[in-house]
């Protein structure tokens, strides 16, 4: 990202409200712990396996368990979660959960009020990016985070572009460990 903005932004470069890049698991865990009502939205990309054979959905489940975060299942992830012994806290498709989240009066998954942090994990990048754009523009009451292996500028917090899956998995494992530590 360029650190220098042109003086006359109106003619050249405007509208670059981009995600804060998270490089440390501890920082990431800090944002999650700080949230009062976080939500984890899981997508179908988590149905794939990593090279070491571990199902990506395992990371999502471990993460949700570590910080007692409710899970929203999108697309066909519900079936897999149930098969893995986890009943999702709610079932919406990606655009439906974004549509609900942008309403500040929505009661949220636990009926305790809308969430203050939503983490997206495993949604295709075109759809995910557009959903994050919706929330960036229309949900000022909400912080967004992505846990996928690429940078998503429309999020409030995003991981970096991981060149190697192993590094990303390492990050996720560290994040889970950080969350297990508690406050």
């Amino acid at each position, binding site marked *: 990202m360029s650190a220098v903005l042109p003086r006359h932004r109106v003619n050249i470069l*405007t*509208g670059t409200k981009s995600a804060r890049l998270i490089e440390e698991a501890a920082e990431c865990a800090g944002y999650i712990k700080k949230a009062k009502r976080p939500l984890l939205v899981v997508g179908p990309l988590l149905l794939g396996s990593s090279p070491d054979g571990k199902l990506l959905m395992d990371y999502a489940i471990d993460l949700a368990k570590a910080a007692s975060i409710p899970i929203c299942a999108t*697309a066909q992830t519900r*079936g897999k979660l149930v098969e893995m012994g986890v009943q999702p806290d709610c079932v919406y*498709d990606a655009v439906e959960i*974004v549509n609900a989240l942008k309403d500040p009066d929505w009661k949220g998954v636990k009926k305790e009020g809308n969430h203050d942090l939503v983490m997206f994990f495993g949604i295709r990048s075109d759809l995910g990016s557009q959903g994050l*754009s919706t929330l960036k523009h229309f949900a000022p009451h909400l912080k967004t985070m992505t846990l996928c292996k690429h940078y998503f500028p429309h999020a409030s917090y995003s991981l970096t572009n991981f060149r190697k899956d192993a590094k990303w998995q390492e990050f996720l494992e560290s994040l889970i460990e950080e969350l297990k530590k508690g406050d």
Partner: protein
Amino acid sequence: MAVAEKKLSRKLEELHKRIRADLPWEPVGPTPMPDIPDLRSWDMRLLKTYKPFYAPFCDLCCLCTYGKCDLTGGKRGACGIDIATQQARMVLMACLMGCSAHAAHGAHILEVLIEKHGPDKKIDLGESITIEAPHIRTVIGLKPETLGDLQIAIDYVFKEVGHLLDSCHTGQEGSALDYESKALHAGMLDHVGMEAADIAQIVGFGYPTSVADTPLVDMGWGAIDKSKPTILVSGHNPATSTELIDYLREHKLEDAVEVAGVCCTALETTRYSDRAKIVGPLSRQLFFMRAGIADVIMTDEQCIRTDTPQEAAKTGAAVIACLDKAMYGLEDATEMVTDDIVKRMVDNGEQFAILDSKKAAEVAVKVAIELAPKRRKEWLTEPEAVELAKKCNACGMCEQVCPNLLCIGDGITEMAKGDFAPIRKLFNECLGCGKCEQECPRDVAIFKLMQVAAGNETWKARSGRGPIMDTEIRTVGAPITLGTIPGVIAIVGCSNFPDMDDIADMVDEFAKRKYIVVLSGCSAMVAGMKKDADGKTVYEKYSPVFEAGGVVNVGSCVANSHITGAAIKIANIFAALPLRGNYEVMADYVLNRVGAVGVAWGAYSQKAASIGTGCNRLGIPVVLGPHASKYRRLYLSRKEEDDWSVMDARKKEIVDTGEPSPEHLAYVCETKEKAMPMIAKLCIRKNDTPQGRAIKLNHYISLHRKYIGGGLPEDLHLFVRRDADIPLVYKKEVRAHLQEIGWQPREPVGLPTYIGTYPSKIAIDSVIH
């Protein structure tokens, strides 16, 4: 005041003259040739339940010299516009581009055909079609009898497009909802323009009509005899390709020259000659050009690559631009002597625009015959491909620029090891844009490599058949509105699919469940590009009749109007509701009683935006693929929180049904697996009989189980009104579930309608047939 009334009266008088209001085929309804505000209250009623959902594709507005304006964080632009209204404005502009593309296609075709046949050429769509133009009758209030009458429809569309485009100018409309109403207006106009275009083509070119069993035509580049001179026709407008076929017929050259089409011109051409070949959808265009099989490429309009001249030059193919919409900066040779053009094209490799279809056709054939023997049409062999693939160092740049997020490099590196399976799969998912090859730092010839993977497989597609017959509507009208035919699934449009196989899978899934499946455009081709275990495509496997379990190809993009037209025909022919200038009643009927769903799984274009938005105004929900979130706007409800009240027209009472049917009007699904049960769910209508509802829920549950898993659908209880709605096969399980969550039965609504729930000039009795 008196002056205003006088003006209104004169306007109405003029309008009645144009639509020949005195002809008593039906009384003229409340909104013939509606202006922008005339259906606004209907739109606002739709938008109350199906609120616009915006996903800005860009944070800025860059349309005027006040800007760029940053619209993030609640900021307004220099003109005062906010981010939501800007999105709605962009959507309207997209719809206007789409609508204009079809209407201009219609205007051009009409000009050509009126020149050929005269304006009084009768519209005759055969003995099985009496409601020849349901959209024109409904929207315009005119029963078109001649080609000249279609011009009235096109003129109306252009007048409205002008008004709508005017509203996009900086510093005008300030309401996102009003922009949405205008987009819905543009969408409705689009279906009028498409209908005029396709009726003109059917009448003027003698396309099949009043017949279901149209010929099966060859598809795939393996079907093309590469030893013959080959002409590729590309785009959407058949004015030139029909002349090309005529020229070949007149000169007895049909056996000597291959004619192949890509995108909708392929469908149009095979409606004219079943000897023409379909290369495939838009996603195959660049592949085919780079394969060098075509000796001559003739472009017309829409969905043709803007770099066609450059790509053709790479393989030594000739190019003729045949329509003024895309002239590529080429010299206009329309007035030049034919033999001179041929000589310059063959000897010098020059490319020309030729806007006279007859001349373009003659030049194309002559050039193809002369050029073909001089060109090499050799493909890479597999061992050569393996060698070339070794250049790839898996840097991943191709993935970064792929609109379908594909990691092409993975396929190439496997190919370098001799395994062609991964690249074959990628080829099926590839949109054919060419960005990967452009980006590759090592200049790997990705397209050439994919050609090897693609192979020479051939398939069958049924050629387009135009409108659904009145006789078919009479047969299926009752079961559709009662719900015993569980739905009409229209799988339409472009080829920006997450995976091409999805289309054939969807067709097969719903046809075998006895839905009626209707296809158009690139989806109609792709549906045929997968074979079952017996080697059959869906066109060979299922009936071509508009009936339960039928798979019907209506034709190209403009034939989409016949799908929505069929929904109007159900209201008019089956339910006997008058359609003339009566759009609101038609749309209300379709929304509440016709279980039709559009699936634009690969939508990419502005035309798809306008077609889909036109479906929405008519009350037909549309399911889109994941990338379609880039259209910026969906129409979504929130099922447990929105108002699902309707008027029971028989009792004249507003009833809070609590039933979200249909749940959304424009919806994006991330995966085929999610789309399958969603499509089934969106077919549910409040009008369903218990038997019909049970059938629909049976499919919803079973598709949910098959593709999602994890038990019953979480929102099932919202769609069960009484015990009789529960499908027999799931009775025990569903009853237990409903009891557990405290479900209470409720009475179905006798005659559900929105009329009477919002300010409208329409009387409630208007919806009672």
